[in-house]
């Protein structure tokens, strides 16, 4: 799940500047679970806007905000409300907000409207209990969990080390963040339990950052072959002419 935190009211009002009429967009997935972009949060923010004399011309929880096709359809559905809006605030993750911003910029009836993020995107994480989230994956592009007993050092070591502990553990706690146990000690314990302690003796090479040239893109093979087929048919059609 993508963990988000709502920006402060002050930050948001600073972004909105002199806007008077605002459209609020949320997201039905991660942001709803994190209580940053569900119906409830949009209503709360609407209340704040109203006390400052701003008007909310539409409110919509996108299902979800990171799907371009879904967002396009939703924006068409509130076409009239958007027409008179000075700003859109998107209460989703940075991904959802960019999907919204891109489509808003592409559509004739909305391209002049600025889109502002209502949330700060924090990390990819798991829900440990209701209302508490812990970072679990850095989406680094090469999963190391196979040799670490299922515990990620890229995410859970403050230095992201791959070759074992740095010596910065006080007792079993990480010196960088005393609330966290040194992940390498956890990995050692887990590897010992599954009889794979020798995994720690293998030197791990530096990470390959060529895999992380931003922005990354991923296309499924089924998508590629469908594209190839389409291309071939178009060419056939041209040749026939």
């Amino acid at each position, binding site marked *: 799940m993508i963990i988000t935190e709502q920006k402060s009211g002050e930050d948001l009002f600073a972004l909105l500047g002199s806007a008077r009429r605002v459209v609020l967009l949320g997201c039905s997935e991660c942001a709803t679970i994190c209580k940053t972009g569900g119906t409830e949060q949009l209503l709360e923010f609407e209340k704040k806007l109203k006390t400052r004399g701003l008007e909310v011309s539409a409110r919509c929880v996108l299902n979800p905000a990171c799907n371009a096709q879904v967002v396009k359809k939703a924006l068409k559905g509130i076409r009239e409300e958007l027409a008179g809006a000075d700003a859109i605030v998107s209460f989703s993750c940075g991904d959802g907000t960019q999907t919204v911003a891109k489509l808003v910029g592409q559509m004739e009836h909305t391209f002049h409207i600025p889109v502002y993020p209502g949330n700060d995107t924090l990390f990819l994480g798991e829900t440990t209990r209701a209302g508490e989230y812990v970072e679990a994956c850095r989406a680094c592009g090469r999963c190391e969990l196979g040799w670490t007993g299922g515990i990620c050092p890229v995410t859970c070591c*403050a230095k992201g080390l*791959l070759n074992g502990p740095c*010596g*910065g*553990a006080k007792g079993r706690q990480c010196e*960088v963040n005393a609330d966290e146990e040194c992940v390498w000690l956890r990995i*050692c314990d887990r590897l010992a339990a599954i009889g794979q302690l020798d995994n720690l*003796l293998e*030197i791990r090479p530096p990470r390959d950052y060529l895999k992380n040239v931003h922005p990354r893109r991923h296309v499924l093979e089924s998508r590629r072959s469908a594209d190839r087929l389409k291309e071939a048919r178009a060419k056939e059609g041209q040749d026939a002419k």
Partner: protein
Amino acid sequence: MSMLSEVLKIDRFAVTAEFAPPKGTDMDHMRVCVRLAKGRIHAANVTDFQSAVMRISSLTACKVVMDEGVEPVIQITGRDRNRIAIQGELLSAGVLGIKNLLAVTGDHPKMGDHPNAMPVYDLDSVGILQVATTFMSGRDLEGNSLNGRIEFFPGAAVSPTRQTMMPQIMKMRKKITAGARFFQTQAVFDLDLLREFRRLTTPFDVPVLAGIVLLKSAGMARFMNRAIPGVEIPEGIIARMDRFVGKERMNEGIRLAGEMIRTIRDENLADGVHIMAIGAEERLGQILDEAGL
């Protein structure tokens, strides 16, 4: 070859001392301290942005050490530079004729005076040792050939504690595979722990310098126990320091350091010592006098 490597090769008890480059461009105090230590230590080990505090880099301070006629050990951490900058720094060290290298991962920026800085860690201590090893074969990390020969005596740190002994020793073995030819430990105060560490690491046949920190007060000892990873100062030592006040505390710290060095040498608990006077480098001579070195 470096003098440090020669000394360790012939099984002479090696002595290195740590020098932290200043914050600012005035090198006078460091020069004076290095001059005082000249002839009494085999190498001056120069930290690299120690404790993640911005200051003069190890490379430049090593040059100053050499100008004073003392052999340097250059420290390189992985915290601030990516693999391009680390390799460039080591090539530069080669140009200056610096042979001894201590590869360390480095304290997190959060611990230093620029806590908002980006932590790099593109290479860790193992990766830095691999750079030194590949350089000596005439290649860089990508296998490209290098102009001119370069020779290093690479070393690394190890932090033996009771709770992390096994993982520390596993990492030590990895560092040896990556090219470490000597080790220096985190500050040792518990000689029983050092005995156990010696027993476990003797089979590796790589020399170890025991880390000696000059205690200046019982308060400093308590602070180190509370805040410094890998440091375990026994209560007996703290009680001993507690008996002294004023200037006598420092003198007792010097006596303690001297006694520890003597025991380490007499019982062969390490192949040498690495003395960290932490701001009292002008007292190095007194520590060595106490140790009978």
